[in-house]
């Protein structure tokens, strides 16, 4: 047994168990953490494919940013678990039907003939100096330069659209303006009064 195969099965098992955990764990925060674990082990599988850039980007983007926001939202939710479990039996047939339908559709699109170790050639191992980052950079900024830039522009449009959709006009806020705070002079805030010092009376110092 090859060590890589062992590592693969280890992380593949974690991926599947964690993915099942996402939908079966009762506590929603734990479900989000299961999803994080799924991403992690998927990244480990990508590392096995020598795609270290993609693996670390997966962790950086999904685990480090997207899931943090998920966790924020889920933590703030006040989920009523009893209400969630109501009507489970009633809706089970529809759920099963939908589930099998979806599975069938996926199965129909990517049939089993495509998969299997005989069908797919083993990916070639790269030599010592191979850099996944350089290779990806060469493809993205060389061969696929225009599609990549166009995708970037589309994303920019989406960002601006999202901001303008949630923008609800100017609101009167009570926030401080740092510029005004910086422009304040000493004379506006501080007044030095010259007065005679009071003599200390005997027996008055508590």
């Amino acid at each position: 047994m090859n060590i890589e195969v062992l590592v693969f099965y280890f992380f593949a098992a974690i991926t599947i168990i964690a993915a099942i955990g996402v939908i079966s764990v009762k506590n929603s925060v734990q479900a989000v953490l299961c999803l994080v674990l799924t991403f992690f082990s998927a990244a480990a599988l990508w590392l096995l494919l020598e795609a270290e850039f993609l693996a670390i980007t997966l962790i950086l983007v999904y685990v480090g940013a997207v899931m943090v926001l998920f966790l924020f939202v889920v933590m703030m939710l006040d989920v009523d678990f009893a209400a969630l479990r109501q009507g489970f039996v009633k809706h089970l047939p529809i759920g099963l039907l939908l589930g099998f339908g979806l599975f069938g559709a996926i199965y129909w699109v990517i049939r089993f003939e495509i998969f299997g170790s005989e069908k797919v050639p083993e990916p070639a191992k790269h030599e010592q100096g191979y850099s996944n980052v350089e290779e990806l950079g060469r493809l993205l900024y060389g061969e696929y330069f225009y599609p990549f830039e166009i995708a970037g522009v589309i994303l920019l449009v989406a960002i601006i659209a999202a901001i303008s959709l949630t923008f609800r006009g100017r609101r009167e806020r009570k926030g401080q303006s740092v510029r005004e705070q910086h422009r304040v002079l000493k004379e506006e805030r501080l007044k030095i009064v010259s007065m005679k010092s009071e003599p200390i009376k005997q027996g008055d110092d508590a």
Partner: protein
Amino acid sequence: MSFMQLLIEGFWIVGKILLILVPLILAVAYTTFAERKLIGYMQMRLGPNRVGPKGWLQPIADVIKLLMKEVVVPSGANKTLFLLAPILFIAPSFAAWAVVPFDAELVLADTNVGLLYLLAMTSIAVYGVIIAGWASNSRYALIGSLRSASQIVSYEIAMGFALVAVLMAGGSMNLGAIVEAQNGSALHWFWIPLFPILVIYWISGVAETNRAPFDVPEGESEIVAGFHVEYAGMAFALFFLAEYANMILISILTALFFFGGWLNPFQGIPYLEPATDWIPGTVWLLLKAAWFLFMMIWLRATFPRYRYDQIMRLGWKVFIPITVVWLIVLTFWIKFEWGWWFDGRGIAAIGGVS
């Protein structure tokens, strides 16, 4: 490779990991001692001076005290997550050390994505904070964890941009290669072409480690101790350990990215360079890192705590625009090979888009 070879190699890697971690933990212990002593002197006090000669055994006493204490799990806390949080916090802060080179050949994992890996590890640490705050079932802890999480997420963007600038200047994501790109003399180091980036990286680093003046997540005066109020004993010690390990990491990274890492600062100077040639690179790296560590402690003794909205303003409205502008400046700097930093990397060398 046979099973025996594999086993030996596995033990060898574990040994190397211990070679990094054990000195790191000792360094953390004595950083706390240095911090208390330094702040003591800055405030005209003596600092700890009772345990052992001149107080040198104080951190050891602290560690033993923390180990002996009971780990209290508050009632109503989510016990699994409560105990998992410190582990989630400390694991990435230790894991990040895997890619840190201590000398030209002295690195545990010589990976091509070192920079990204570091960024990923610092961004995962936020889970420990969020979960600690949520699982404690305490409102102070929750407020602290929300503050910390938003602070880490905001400053990570500025830090990421700063690392992009370092990547552009160094021409590689491998930390060793970035240091090698600064070879030449102290004037070849990246602190000159990347000066604004250096300042931003350093301040974001202080903010990411939740250190004063950015320590609102544990602002003692308002929310007791932030996300780790409910932790006692060893569980608290893990948070403490991770925070100081992160401080040392940020200091070492600043030395690596901007101050030539293990390179001799007297390089290229007649008489001084041959005279200091025998000093190993690791010593230079640690000396440079120690200076930045000292600066962190100095900052804490000097500045009052930032207000929360000021922190957010600084991160989003000041740092991110500056880094973006400097990235553009740097692009031209590299393209036209101004100065001596980016020889052989400009238009002439690449020959335009092929």
